[in-house]
Structures are given as structure tokens and as C-alpha cells.
């Protein structure tokens, strides 16, 4: 994450008004330029056409395999930016597509999913990921999406530590990074909307992590999953039909001035811990009420 405070004052970068900034005769012609685009890929690489196609393909999985149920969808703003924050699980995370699909079909608002650069670097996968709404998790990207474009942005603050954990640790939230998501939301002046997800953990449980192989392959983890034991090689791409339940918690507003160069680190850590705790408590509550992993 870029450190905004490590910036020395720079004569060439300071936005001090040079002569030109004072009073320039604006050119009269301010009509928009001709922009002959030949595709609908936006600046983030997302294509609404590809996204709609992905939704059509994914819908049977969402409805019939995972049988997703939501509560508290009304907590997601219908307009303006908001940072959606959820727990992260399953060796190949099944939660991101479920959340994006659900919100996009229910609220008809696009959701941009922030993820590790790992995806961007992969051939084919990286391109598909970006066309269907994935954005590299860089603070500048998040800020621009939230503050300037008023979009819904999904982030998993646990990062790869969530999906990489052993099945015995299921629903135990990992550390929420360094609270960068809180800082972004503060700077962008948007609320954080916590989401608790039940079901993802059981859709692809990690039984063993081959950490040496992972290190050699440059991956955060390299799991042996229950799916692989059950389905063989197909298990790498086949989820177990766990029942998904999602609960959207009330939005958290930070009462701070946006666009500050820095925010109190202790405040950030406190808020981050509070959001994490909200989600953790909601998960415990949902698990208390869950009778069956497969039928909810």
C-alpha cells in the first residue's frame, strides 16, 4: 500500500498556482470529444456484456447448487459509493462470485471486486476476471471507484489468509490486514457495509496445505481439498453443494472529513477491529441457527 506520508515536498509536483493556473482563457469549445469506441470495456477492464454473460452462466449455480439466501439487503445503498467487506473462505473462494452475482441481480447495481494482483498476472484467467468485474486491489483504484465514480466495491480484508486457512479453523476470521479498507473508506467518504457469509467454508474445505509447493509456485497457499479427494482432478473446480446464507449488517459511517492525507492509525485499527468483530459475531449467530451444512 502506498504510504502517503512518505512524500517529500516536491517543487515539480506541488499544486502551487503557477502563472497559468490563475486566469487562463478557457477555450470556447467545451463539447465532448469524439470517442469512437469499438467495445464496452471500461477503464477497469469490465465489460457489461461479458458480465451479463457470466451472470447467465453462473445463475444456475447460484440458485440450484448453492441455493443462496440473503438477509439485510436493504443495508446496501442503492446509490453512491460503499465499501462492502466480507469474510473470505474456500480454497478457490466461492464467496466473491456469490456476493457480486447476488447484489447485481437483486439491486441491479454493478459490484467491482478488489483482489490480489495474482489474478491480473495470470494469462486468460486474469483477462476474464477483469472483464467480469475484478479490479486489482490498489488503494488508488479503490479511491477512484468509491469517491469519483460512486460505485459498490467488494473487498476481503483477510486477503489470502482467509481462503488459505485449514478447515478446522472455519469461520474464525483472520486479521483484517492493517485496516487499509477503513482508511480507504474514510478518505473516499463512503460507509463500510459488512457482510457475513456462511457456506463458503464448506464448499471447498482445505484439508492440507502444501506450503513448500506453494512457495515454489509463488502462490499464497497450495491446498489439498476435500473436493479433490471426492472428485479427483475435477475437484479442483467443483464445489461441494453447501447452502449459502448471507447477512448484510448495517452500514458503518466514519464521521471524518474525506480526502485527508492521513488518518489516525489507532482510530483505523479500532474501526477495523470493530467491523471484524461485527462480522465474527454475526457468523456465530448464523452458525447457531444453522441445522445442516447442506440444507441450511
Amino acid at each position, binding site marked *: 500500500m*502506498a504510504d502517503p506520508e512518505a512524500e517529500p515536498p516536491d517543487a515539480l509536483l506541488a499544486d502551487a498556482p503557477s502563472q*497559468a493556473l490563475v486566469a487562463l482563457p478557457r477555450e470556447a469549445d467545451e463539447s465532448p470529444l469524439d470517442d469512437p*469506441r*469499438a467495445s464496452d470495456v471500461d*477503464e477497469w477492464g469490465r465489460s457489461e456484456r461479458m458480465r451479463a454473460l457470466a451472470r447467465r452462466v453462473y445463475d444456475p449455480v447460484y440458485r440450484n447448487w448453492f441455493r443462496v439466501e440473503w438477509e439485510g439487503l436493504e443495508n446496501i445503498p442503492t446509490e453512491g459509493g460503499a465499501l462492502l467487506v466480507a469474510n473470505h473462505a474456500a480454497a478457490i473462494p466461492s464467496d466473491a462470485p456469490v456476493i457480486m452475482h447476488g447484489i447485481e441481480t437483486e439491486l441491479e447495481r454493478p459490484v467491482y471486486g478488489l483482489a490480489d494482483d495474482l489474478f491480473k498476472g495470470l494469462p486468460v484467467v*486474469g483477462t476474464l476476471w477483469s472483464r467480469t468485474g475484478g479490479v486489482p486491489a490498489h488503494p*488508488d483504484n479503490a479511491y477512484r471507484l468509491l469517491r469519483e465514480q460512486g460505485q459498490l466495491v467488494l473487498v476481503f480484508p483477510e486477503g489470502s489468509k482467509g481462503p488459505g486457512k485449514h478447515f478446522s479453523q472455519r469461520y474464525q476470521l483472520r486479521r483484517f490486514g492493517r485496516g487499509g479498507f477503513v482508511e480507504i473508506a474514510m478518505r473516499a467518504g463512503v460507509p463500510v457495509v459488512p457482510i457475513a457469509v456462511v457456506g463458503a467454508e464448506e464448499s471447498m474445505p482445505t484439508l492440507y496445505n502444501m506450503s513448500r509447493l506453494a512457495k515454489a509456485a509463488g502462490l499464497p497457499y497450495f491446498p489439498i481439498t476435500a473436493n479433490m479427494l471426492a472428485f479427483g482432478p475435477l475437484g479442483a473446480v467443483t464445489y461441494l453443494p453447501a447452502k449459502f446464507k448471507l447477512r448484510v449488517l448495517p452500514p458503518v459511517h466514519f464521521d471524518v472529513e474525506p480526502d485527508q492525507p492521513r488518518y489516525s492509525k489507532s482510530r483505523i485499527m479500532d474501526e477495523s477491529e470493530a467491523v471484524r468483530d461485527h462480522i465474527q459475531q454475526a457468523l456465530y449467530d448464523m452458525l447457531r441457527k444453522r441445522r445442516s451444512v447442506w440444507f441450511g
Partner: protein
Amino acid sequence: MGRRILVTGLGTFWGGRVAQALEQDPTVDIIVGLDTKPPSVELERTEFVRVDENYSILARIVRATQVDTIVHTFLVVNSDQMRARAMHEINVIGTMNLFAAASAAGSTVRHVVVKSSSLVYGSAVGDPTWFREDTPRTKPPRNRVERSLIDVEGYVHDFAEDNPHVNVSLLRFSNVLGSDIVTPISQLLQQPVVPYILGYDPRLQFVHEIDVVRSLAYVLDHEVAGIYNVAGDGLLPWSEVAAICAKRRVPMLPVGTSLATLPLKVLGGADFNPETIDLLKYGRGIDNRRLVRTGFRYQYTSAGTVAAFAEAMRLRRTIGDHEPGYRYESDVEQFFRHSPAVVRDQH
């Protein structure tokens, strides 16, 4: 007294076009152009001085001509144009000599404009979608052209800091396309089939050569100091670029791309250097709003630039390559500029 301007790299596309633009400006009294080779465009009143590539006699020229403005366009941004050492001589040593001359005691220089490139941001997996002027690059440079440009920008910084009375403008240009300029990207797009790296479809940004010249003239006119990105609005995928140019695409394997494209380089003369390969994998976007905030207006978006380039390519295909009919002849130019026999317009 009008302005007195020194243009480095007069023989390049950039320098020549900027000098042409400056000649139209009646407030500019004197234009002196330096290069190792003569200008390739017709110039009316620009004085051409042939120098060696690291500008060792620059201090004398600056003193003798008393210029108040230096436009430094003589920077190599295309690593296939020459060998590493020659590029280092031109970019790094040339810039050092230029700034040494400009900051010498009694120097009359008050404004320096340097043409840099968005190559200084690199192109890597961890990059933000948009680079602002103050966004640091995410990976240290691995190729020589980026390293040398970063060195050059370091000298620009030092010079600006040591000479607060001088307006320093540093422009970083995105991928330039147009009817005249030859770049690694324009060469790729002129192949019968356009290569892409299998599995990657990065988003690129373009700036039209007309906006390039306009932006240089703009910062000169308005004395806009500071670092500015110069690029058209919007990003578009490489596949879309090929589609606008109505070209079929041919895949290159993501590993060993530089080796696989060797025949292309030898046969077709197309550049496929390391920085271009990075660009065709990860793309790059630069935030152009800082210059827009000073009042500059672009004439082309990224997509508009590509479309205009495609049209120029089609025209050339029909009417053939119009080699510039102009050749610099020293005696002829001296005659037109200085002979009493020539009747000159008085401004």
C-alpha cells in the same frame, strides 16, 4: 524583446514539429535547433546547429545566443533505435550537459521544457489502473530505456530545485500515434497481422501527435511549470485497438516472447522490446487531469487517436508512402535566411 528559444533534437519528429509551431508565434524572436542530423521538416527561420550527441559545446551556444527558453525533446524513448551506450550518451550525458549549460553563471535561461515518457512509470502486475504524476512505480526498472529516462528525470528534479527562478516543465507522454511518427506500437499496428500475447488483453492509452505538439506549445506559451502526464482520455483493450485498425490478431506465447518475436524483428523491422512486452501484458493508464486543470484541452481521446491513426494508415495504403520531399541543404538554408537578396516579411 521577444523570446529566444533553443530546441534540442531538431532532427527528430518532436523537435521539428515543435520548431514549426514556434515559428508561427510572432512573440518568438529566435529559434535555435540542435541535433546530430539535419531537420527532416521544412523550417523557415529556425537556425540549425549540428552538434555531437552529448552536446559538449552546449554551454557556448547558450552563452552566445542568450536563449531564455530550452525545449529538450532530444530523448530516446524507443530502445530499438540504437545501442545502449549511444542511448545513454544522448539521454543522460546530453541532459547533464544541457542543465550544466542552463545553470552556468550568467545564464539567461528562465524556462525549461523536457519531453519525457510514461515509460518512467513502468508496467507491472501491481500497478494502479491510473498513475498520477506523484504515483511511485511499483517495480524497479528492468530495461535500459526506463532506467535512462528515470536518470534524466532525476537531473530535471535537481535542476528545478537548484534553480527556483527557472520554470521547469516536465511532460510525460503516453503512447503516441499519428500519421507521421514511428513508435514500437505504431510499427506493430502496421504489420499485416497484429501480435498479442496469448491470454492477455491489456488496456492501453494513446495520445495523438497533434496533442503532443499542442501540449508542448501550450506549456511554453503559458509558462506552466511542473510535471504533467499527457495522454488522451480513456483506456482501451489491445484487442479493440486492433479492431479499430481492422487488423487480425496473432497470438504470441507469454513465455519467451522476445525470442519468438525475433523473426518479426529481423524480417518486418517491428520493435518488440522488453518494455513493449510488459505493456502488452499489463497495460498502463496515466491520469491526464493535472494538465487539464491548468486549462489545456485535448483534441483526441485515446480511441479517437487510434481511429485517426487507422485512417492515416488507410490513406497511406492507397496513395503510397509519401517520403518527405524535403532535404536539408545547408547552403540553400543559409541563403534563404541570411542573403540580402531574399525579401523577408517583417513581423
